[in-house]
């Protein structure tokens, strides 16, 4: 799917070298084996997620039985209960924080990526390493000053403080990813525009920006996933006005009696990011490599 060309070459190679019939049979057997093992590996990883969805459709009584139940009468009561139990304020905050912080990441990272690739400053590597080095800093090492400042500004337990912290958390990633996408724009296109007499901002707006769309989309999706799932800042800087991970924290005290309810809420909050992740997976790999390995 991703590397049809590579696979085609490999297929022809196999066809050419494995001319003898027994070898071809062995090749087919091997392919079946890899297929079975590949699916086994994939399903092992996916199983806990599937099991979670399954449990979310059981009654608490069925979910609490010692033997896992796979045949049961499904119920949606836990989904109904989740939406009845005040999930909405948390969900709205999660949407707000994710959307605003991701938008700001792109707004700040795009010009920065430009200054680190297309019209580069003197030593772009130094700045790039500064940005990535901030990700090495243990988040806990800076939390006390942030907590104190937030307290004094009256920002504790608000969504602004989360937006700011998420922006700081995702900005280095955004810059690295967008820069690596920008690096891949052929220089000839930009030079041709220059020859045509286009001003710098015009090149940025009408030449580079349209070409960057897929890169921006996958960067934004990944940042949104991280923002949506973020727990450390939410737990330490907010309590009642917070995001979904803190809504889930409530269930910690209920213990094992609410397995099915937890499963339903966990499924609801995971659906948006899982779908985003599935859509982003192709360009995600490119982004994750940061253009560092070719």
């Amino acid at each position: 799917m991703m590397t049809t060309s590579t696979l085609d070459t490999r297929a022809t190679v196999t066809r050419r070298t494995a001319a003898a019939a027994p070898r071809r049979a062995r090749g087919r057997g091997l392919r079946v084996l890899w297929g079975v093992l590949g699916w086994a590996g994939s399903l092992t990883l996916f199983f806990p997620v599937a099991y979670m969805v399954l449990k979310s459709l059981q009654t608490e009584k069925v979910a609490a039985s010692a033997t896992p139940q796979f045949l049961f009468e499904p119920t949606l009561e836990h989904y109904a209960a989740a939406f009845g139990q005040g999930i909405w304020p948390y969900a709205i905050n999660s949407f707000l924080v994710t959307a605003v912080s991701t938008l700001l990441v792109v707004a700040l990272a795009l010009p920065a990526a430009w200054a680190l690739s297309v019209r580069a400053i003197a030593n772009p590597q130094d700045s790039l390493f500064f940005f990535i080095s901030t990700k090495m800093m243990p988040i806990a090492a800076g939390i006390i000053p942030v907590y104190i400042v937030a307290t004094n500004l009256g920002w504790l337990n608000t969504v602004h403080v989360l937006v700011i912290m998420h922006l700081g958390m995702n900005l280095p990633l955004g810059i690295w990813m967008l820069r690596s996408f920008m690096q891949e724009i052929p220089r000839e296109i930009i030079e041709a525009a220059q020859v045509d007499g286009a001003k710098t901002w015009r090149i940025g707006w009408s030449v580079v920006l349209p070409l960057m769309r897929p890169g921006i989309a996958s960067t934004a999706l990944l940042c949104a996933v991280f923002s949506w799932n973020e727990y450390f800042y939410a737990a330490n800087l907010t309590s009642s006005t917070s995001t979904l991970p803190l809504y889930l924290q409530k269930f910690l005290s209920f213990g094992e009696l609410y397995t099915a309810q937890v499963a339903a809420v966990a499924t609801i909050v995971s659906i948006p990011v899982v779908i985003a992740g599935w859509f982003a997976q192709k360009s995600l790999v490119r982004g994750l490599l940061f253009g560092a390995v070719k």
Partner: protein
Amino acid sequence: MSTMTMTTVVAARPAMSRHEKWARRGPLLPALVFTLVLTQIPFAVTLFLSVQRWLLLDGSVPSFAGFQNYLGVFQDEVFWKSTGNTVVMTGGTTIACILLGLVLAFLLNQQFPGRGIARTLAITPFFVMPVAVTLFWKSAMFDPSFGLLGFFSRSLGLPGVNWLSEYPMAALVMLLTWRFVPFAMLILLAGLQSAPQDQLEAAQMDGAGPFRRFLSVILPHLRPFIELAALLLAMNLIQTFGEIAMLTAGGPAYGTTNITFYIYLKAFNAFDFGMASALGVVALILTIALILPMLRLLSGIFKTEGR
């Protein structure tokens, strides 16, 4: 090296004017200033607080304490224990993720029906909300009486294991590995897909078996991908917080408290801001010591990029 690049730049075009330099820096400044303010100022404040005595509980105001907090950190058994836990948790999970990720990437790089769907399903654990799935694992997987792992061991006739009280660290590493294997797999799969086909063919014509081809062609090609995956994994895992808070709350007897979680306990449970700040500074130094050699590797990879 730097002088060389300088001369080539100068040769290519006349030195940038002051105006041009600032025009180029301009677009970078908002992001740079924001990151500087958000990361460097808190760190400076942490450094300041780390030499203060400041317990929020007795209502005291910060007062200079010299290196008392640092002394306290190094004499604190729990600090050493949490450092050890951080190493075990980060190292164990990173190694497990790389090994399993390699196997999975190899399998998902083969041609078989439904490969695209198999890949998509395999990466799902990386996206689901960590806090949510951790809570779910806690009751539906690890619980000794109705968790799935307990059911498996019972059906094999083994005694039931209470994972969270008997093997809490193993349980955490298992959960973290499950979450991060897809991440390692994605990077390693990209490495396998870009493996040099011509060299593989040449090796095959020279009569090299699959094992030999893997060792002398694929593995050297994969090395930077493995290094990058390990670096990114370690960077993420060293900060583990939510999984610990949900699964074990750092226990039993600080058995699963890593440094991040210990700072949190000191700051927001004991409200000892001075000590917590000193811990933060020490954690930063330890992190740099641990990650810097790996970052060098990355910068090596990065420099060979060419452009």
